[in-house]
């Protein structure tokens, strides 16, 4: 197994881990962290696969994609945190209720 | 666009535009609204007259606009559409006058007349549709335009009747749509053609079974509006609508659109020969005959006058289907001419029922004793209409039944004659007691809710329409062999279908 395959598999593992936690954890902060773990997984796969066997220079395109992705992820996280704070202020809880109503 | 392509659009527009304007008129603008209504109705009549004259002189009218690739929106004028267009524009004018009088000082009149105009637009569209998809378009539009008229009173009963109407008609429309699309995928066209297009265009690999299934789908979809038993359940409930709506629904618009569609499908889609060859006409004739007898029997037991008339409609409208499904030119004439005759007679009866309810508060047959002494003109019109329905010569209904009967004999289907005789006996049984009670019995006392009496027995806007239509019903019978009479048209249509 080459190094990049290993990294890619770890990335996929992180993605699945994050997805699992996002569904299972009730606490909103944990959910947001889980989403971050998911995106880190995807970025890891991207970076790992950028190194092409046999060539010296890695492919620049995935790097550009990862940078864009990180920017997006940071803003999403900031937004999610604000939303979480608002919910906590409004409901006094850090979890989403099971049912929703007006 | 040249004039021959524009005329069908103008005929549609002559009721569509006034209708749209009326929606936005404030309730208080009674004169403007009435003027718009009457102007639209008169204009339509004139335009239809121009079209009849043009067709007589050999002009062909066709409007064709692209709808989706391969399918056009087509309006055209052939003999059959002219018959129906003329009927609806004449009766629309009469009904408009009646409705203006009937709804005097009632709420929501702008809404009512707006939808009323849309309803007539849809009917005229059904009449002039040049292919099955255009027909379907207007057929569904008719459903939508009549619903607000049925629930117009705004009572809980009206709301439920409206729901029942929608359940039947929207489901029927869905069946019609499946049949239409299916037919299109098999034939690649839906244009109405004399003698039908299905037998020529359906590819050799097409099974006869699928054509039969499509036929059943189409007839079921149309049968809902034509109130073929067992698809008739909505009609008696829809009686909660105001009288002019019932008149229009039963004589011109909804019920007639269904019957007209059945004629179109059998003649111009399948072709009578091919339909007979498929073996679908006899079951349809039997269904129509069953409807005629069943509904007449039901009518016998209705005390509510409008319900009795409703069941009578269900029965009478099936004469059209019966005439077309009896494979033979003479019966066909009877069926087609009944399209007009039933309209004239039934609209008269509903106008009269409306007059009784509006002027005296009489809604039930049992309340009608001696009513003719109080309202002689109304009851005279009623009597003419009822005798016509029974088939007394020389009234309109007699002509229809005569052609149906002799046609059935000529086609070797004697059982139909028995149905006709039985039906006429039943017609007599549910109409004659009314006529007898109205003319020859003494009134039981005060009327349920009598309006203050003017110089005439009721408002002239209510009295004139039934008298006019009753005279029409008499005239089309007496003058049946005059050129341009409905009978002449019906003969022309039947010749085209059978003459090839």
């Amino acid at each position, binding site marked *: 197994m080459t190094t990049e395959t290993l990294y890619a598999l770890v990335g996929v593992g992180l993605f699945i881990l994050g997805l699992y936690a996002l569904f299972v954890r009730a606490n909103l902060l944990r959910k947001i962290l889980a989403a971050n773990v998911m995106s880190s997984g995807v970025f890891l796969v991207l970076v790992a696969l950028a190194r092409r066997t046999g060539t010296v220079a890695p492919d620049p395109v995935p790097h550009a*994609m990862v940078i864009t992705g990180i920017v997006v992820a940071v803003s999403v996280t900031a937004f999610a945190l604000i939303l979480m704070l608002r919910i906590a202020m409004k409901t006094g809880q850090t979890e989403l209720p099971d049912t929703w109503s007006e | 666009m040249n004039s021959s392509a524009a005329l069908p659009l103008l005929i549609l527009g002559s009721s569509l535009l006034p209708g749209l304007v009326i929606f936005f008129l404030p309730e208080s603008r009674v004169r403007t609204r009435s003027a718009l209504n009457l102007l639209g109705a008169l204009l339509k009549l004139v335009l239809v007259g121009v079209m009849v004259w043009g067709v007589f002189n050999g002009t062909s009218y066709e409007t064709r606009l692209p709808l989706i690739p391969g399918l056009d929106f087509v309006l055209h004028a052939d003999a059959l559409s002219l018959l129906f267009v003329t009927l609806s524009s004449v009766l629309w004018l009469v009904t408009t006058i009646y409705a203006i009088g009937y709804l005097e000082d009632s709420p929501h009149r702008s809404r009512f007349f707006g939808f009323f105009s849309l309803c007539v637009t849809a009917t005229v569209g059904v009449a002039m549709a040049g292919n099955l998809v255009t027909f379907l378009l207007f057929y569904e539009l008719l459903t939508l335009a009549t619903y607000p008229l049925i629930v117009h009173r705004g009572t809980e009963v009206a709301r439920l009747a409206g729901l029942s109407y929608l359940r039947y008609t929207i489901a029927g429309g869905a069946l019609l*749509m499946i049949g239409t699309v299916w037919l299109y*995928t098999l034939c690649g066209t839906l244009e109405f053609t004399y003698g039908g297009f299905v037998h020529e265009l359906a590819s050799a690999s097409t099974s006869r079974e699928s054509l039969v299934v499509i036929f059943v789908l189409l007839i079921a979809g149309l049968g809902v509006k034509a109130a073929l038993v067992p698809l008739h359940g909505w009609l008696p409930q829809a009686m909660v609508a105001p009288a002019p709506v019932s008149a229009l629904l039963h004589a011109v618009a909804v019920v007639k659109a269904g019957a007209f569609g059945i004629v179109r499908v059998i003649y111009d889609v399948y072709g009578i020969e091919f339909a007979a060859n498929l073996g679908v006409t006899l079951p349809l004739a039997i269904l129509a005959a069953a409807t005629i007898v069943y509904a007449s029997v039901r009518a016998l037991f209705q005390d509510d006058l409008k319900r009795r008339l409703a069941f009578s409609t269900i029965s009478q409208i099936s004469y059209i289907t019966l005439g077309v499904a009896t494979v033979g030119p003479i019966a066909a004439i009877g069926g087609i001419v009944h399209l007009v005759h039933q309209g004239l007679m039934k609209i008269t009866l509903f106008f009269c029922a409306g007059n009784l309810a509006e002027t005296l508060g009489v809604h039930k047959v049992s309340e009608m004793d001696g009513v003719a002494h109080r309202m002689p003109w109304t009851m005279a019109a009623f009597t003419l209409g009822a005798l016509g329905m029974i088939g007394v010569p020389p009234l309109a209904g007699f002509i229809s039944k005569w052609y149906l009967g002799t046609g059935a004999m000529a086609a070797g289907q004697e059982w139909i004659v028995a149905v006709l005789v039985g039906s006429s006996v039943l017609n007599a049984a549910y109409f004659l007691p009314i006529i007898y009670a109205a003319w020859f019995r003494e009134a039981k006392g005060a009327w349920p809710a009598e309006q203050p009496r003017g110089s005439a027995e009721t408002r002239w806007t209510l009295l004139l329409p039934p008298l006019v239509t009753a005279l029409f019903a008499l005239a089309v019978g007496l003058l049946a062999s005059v050129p341009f009479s409905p009978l002449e048209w019906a003969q022309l249509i039947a010749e085209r279908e059978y003459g090839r």
Partner: protein
Amino acid sequence: MEVIITTFPWGVVLILVPLFGALSCFMWPNVARYLALSTAFALVMSVIALAVRLITTGSYRHEIGGWGAPLGIELFADGLSLLMLAATAVVGFAVTVYSIGYFPNRQLLRFLPIWFLLLAALNALFLSGDIFNLYVALELTGLAAVALTAMSGGRAALIAAMRYLFATLVGSMSYLLGVVLIYHSFGSLDFMILAERVEASPATWSALGLMSIGLALKTALFPLHFWLPPAHASAPAPVSAALSGLVVKASFYILLRLWLEVFPAGHSLIPGEFLGALGVCAIFWGGLQALRATRLKLLIAYSTVMQVGYFFLVFPLATVVAWHGVLFLLLSHALAKAAMFLAAGNIIYFAGHDRIVDFDRIAQQLPMTLAAFALAGVCIMGLPPGGGFIAKWLMVQASLESGQWWWAAALILGSLVAAAYVFKVVGHSFTQTTVREKTNVVPVLMEWTALALALASVLLGLVASWPLAWMEIGGVFAGVPAR
């Protein structure tokens, strides 16, 4: 003049105009409403100009700043993009006009910048020619949509927004993982290049599988629809109109592009029949829930779940006629659903609630709003002359032609259910009643906007041949079987 119209990069304008609109509304709050109106109007005009260009010269590509792929960003516009851009511009204009009447000033100033960001993101999405740009635009769309959902700040809205945010995140992550796999296998992100290189392999299957699941989640395909009804029902009415009318279609549009252009049939782990079957479930589940709903906005939201089901019937059919039908459905549903939500907004504005049983007291006093709802309903249930009728016709035709009659049956039965829930609402409005509640006067402009959109959705059926012809620009359907 004509030369300018046919050579100018209108695509760039379509992205920049709303971005500037967002900025300027934020910078100059005093004149924000005029800025908003001019921005929305400029968008409509730019789409018309783009349409002229596409109709005269066919599809086009534009390298932003002269930087081509792979490092630069290329914009791409063909008939399909035009259709979606037109829907966005029309609905966008209506919602902008409506929002000026609907929101109190402070809320309006919060709404407008995010709203124009959403429009910019949507336009960018419909103009993207590569799968990574689509990801970025999709994420931006999602973020702006969530922010708008949360705008009212109420408990239900915040919670719905949070759910929506997680759903949209999982969806785009899953999509992005698919993009990574595709890029690794074929070395390109560009649609056209991919279309030539893609071949069946386990990587392709799993990539398309991941992307389809992600996009289905964002489009709210049953059973991944759980986030939609609360979000669409608790957002302010103009926002709901945009969410149901436009945002849901953005992710579906990507799915269409992928299936139509990049991956020939049979290259996915998820077969078309499976997506179609989920679509049928969506039709009936959404329809049933809409029938059960007691609040108008919730009813409309579930109706969107149902209509999304219709969209997915295209995958098992996959003929030109079916694509025509579903694209036409996208267009007419955008107009009709937006009109419905705006009508619902009028009712809430008027009465302060949207309980369907109490409608008899409201509808008689808002006839134009009721007419808007009913007309849009005609379109939604697929009755003529509404745009929905043409769409239904084409899709039924496609299923009968290909011998798969069961999809046609689902379509027809679904439209009966739709008729039932539309008339459940309309039926109440004719009832006579004298009970008056305390009410607010609805600005005339709001009533007219809803009615105009509804009319457009109905008249669309009569001019169907135009959009159907525009779809063909650029030859999107070249590789699709005719029947």
